[in-house]
């Protein structure tokens, strides 16, 4: 029997009241964005908003709860944007979306800031107060993605830079409180696929981060399917679950699973993070069953049912409805293999 576990990638939309409050408190320009030194008033808004989205997930019945990364003004580039040895410069487009982030430029040796760990500590306090059965999951950018989103003016070599970013993320992860799960989001493995040699290095970099933490680790590619070569290398990393975006490109994703196999656990992007059409719980379960039917040779221990992308793209009403659909889909925790 396969366990169905509902969760989401991080990076939630801010509650609408917090959007308004923070617009007033922080302003609209590049230099107004989070740099890790925000004062008590701004911190207070984020604390209240974090409480709201964690509670929202618990109410929706999600099995793995995330912190929501509401402070991540620069989306996945955030861990670098608040790190020393990094300058934030012009705004650049965030993949093929109508979203932008400050370009992080690495100018010296990277050192972990503990910023993400502090967010997780705060989320852990909230889940503890609720005495919920749900576990806490951490979310980080994968090392290849974070290196791809940044500009290197210090390490000088692309492979060396990916290694340095991996070591940086591993140091961040080592500071985390107890979490049951870590999802590494790797959109760049799809959008800017590593070439020959770097593909293997990207996989090793993931290994570096995954082995730094005592938790289940999943790697979730985003915005499509991995190139076959990249996928094959990714399976060599010491991870518990590999992800498939069944919304953007279900055929290419299932092809990879059929041709190369998969990890014992898999993570399925079943809910569209970039569209306001809300999937029903039945639709989500049908998609899980479809994937299992397409890969009959596999006997998955656990299937993570999640969204195919970050959810900050959505308005808050649809975001909430999608959380509830995921929670309801996994309410019966076992599905037939």
């Amino acid at each position: 029997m396969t366990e169905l576990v509902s969760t989401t990638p991080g990076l939630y939309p801010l509650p609408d009241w917090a959007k308004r409050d923070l617009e007033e408190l922080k302003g609209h320009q590049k230099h107004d964005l989070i740099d890790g030194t925000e004062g008590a008033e701004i911190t207070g808004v984020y604390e209240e908003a974090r409480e709201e989205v964690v509670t929202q997930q618990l109410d929706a019945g999600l099995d793995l709860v995330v912190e929501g990364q509401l402070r991540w003004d620069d989306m996945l580039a955030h861990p670098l944007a608040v790190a020393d040895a990094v300058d934030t410069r012009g705004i650049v487009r965030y993949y093929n979306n109508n979203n932008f982030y400050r370009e992080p430029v690495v100018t010296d040796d990277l050192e972990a800031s503990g910023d993400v760990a502090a967010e997780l500590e705060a989320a852990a306090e909230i889940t503890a107060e609720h005495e919920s059965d749900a576990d806490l999951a951490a979310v980080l950018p994968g090392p290849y993605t974070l290196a791809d989103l940044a500009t290197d003016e210090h390490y000088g070599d692309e492979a060396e830079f990916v290694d340095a970013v991996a070591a940086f993320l591993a140091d961040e992860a080592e500071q985390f409180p107890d979490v049951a799960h870590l999802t590494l989001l790797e959109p760049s493995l799809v959008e800017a696929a590593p070439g020959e040699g770097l593909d293997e290095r990207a996989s090793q970099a993931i290994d570096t981060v995954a082995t730094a933490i005592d938790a289940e680790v999943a790697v979730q590619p985003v915005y499509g399917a991995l190139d076959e070569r990249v996928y094959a290398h990714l399976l060599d990393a010491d991870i518990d679950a590999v992800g498939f975006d069944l919304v953007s490109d279900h055929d290419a994703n299932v092809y990879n699973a059929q041709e190369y196999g998969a990890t014992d656990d898999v993570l399925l992007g079943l809910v569209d993070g970039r569209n306001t059409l809300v999937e029903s719980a039945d639709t989500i379960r049908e998609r899980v069953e479809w994937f299992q039917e397409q890969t009959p040779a596999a006997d998955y221990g656990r299937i993570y049912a999640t969204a195919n992308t970050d959810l900050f793209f959505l308005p808050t009403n649809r975001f909430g409805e999608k959380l509830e659909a995921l929670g309801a889909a996994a309410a019966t925790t076992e599905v037939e293999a």
Partner: protein
Amino acid sequence: MTKEQFRPEDHPNDHFLMTTVVGSYPKPKWLNRVRERCHHQEDVDQVELEPVDEETLAEAEDDAARLITKEHERAGLDVVVDGEMRRTEMVEYFAERIEGYEFNGPVKVWGHNYFDKPSVVSEVEYGEQWLVDEYEFTSEVADRPVKVPITGPYTLARWVFNEHYETTADLANDLAELVNEEVEKLVDAGARYIQIDEPALAQHEDDHAIVGEALERVVEDLPEDVRIGLHVCYGDYSRIYPEILEFPVDEFDLELANGDFEQVDVFKEPEFTADLAMGVLDAHVAEVESVEEIKENIKKGLEIVPPEQLVVSPDCGVKLLPRNAAYQKLENMVQAAREVEAELDAGEIDVLQAPASADD
């Protein structure tokens, strides 16, 4: 159509680097307050402020449009707009007037900048008029030529949640019909300078054919004396150049200052055959660029095109800047353009040769 038709009669220099803006400008705080009191009456009740009706809001928008048009003229711009005082955001404003869209709430663009991203839930149809009243009001109060920025069909199709159409191309094609209808109305009302805003193009470079087809429909049957610009921003231009030169437009308005002009070289080969409206001000930095700095930025445009093809503009709409910074930036930009013109007249700047006319 050439920019010469917009040269002021008393222009001080032989060379003419037309100065303009992309479109949006910071709204006066009092306008935002009136808008809040009109659109969020439940919030207004909580703080015991008098709600206002649509008529009062319209009057406030007229006042703001007049004020900002004059502010643009005071900054010395050759071609002005009203700063888009009546518009909320470049997709939202139009989607509110097109049947087939619905709204679910604000979504993030960057930092703390959001827009009410609509969903397309049925076939799009022309609803209430979009911009003719805005144009007629602005041209009535302006002493300078007026440009009309209008969001293009591709961006109106891309920056939404599509819940109805099979493909983005299908939606963009239908929207192109509507944009064409509005452009024809604007031209009938006297508009001679229309800028199609297509920032979504820079994020989906593989779709340039869809954009090209939509633009062909947008400009179909327009008179020869109408100048059409295309604004594209924040992307890797090497992925859309030189293909964009095939588009049926007179001018490309491009963001270059934000990236420290690193993309200038993209446009040097093959030859840039249209007019270039060069982004010489960073729209996302409140620090005001000096006249000297802007002059150097303008000269980078002369590495791409000769003065006859150069227009000077900020990177993008400046609505997120503090208003005094926006004004000072524009004033410095105009002064920088005039000084570069004078230096061109004096032969102090080396320039590219104008491309030979096909008639020679």
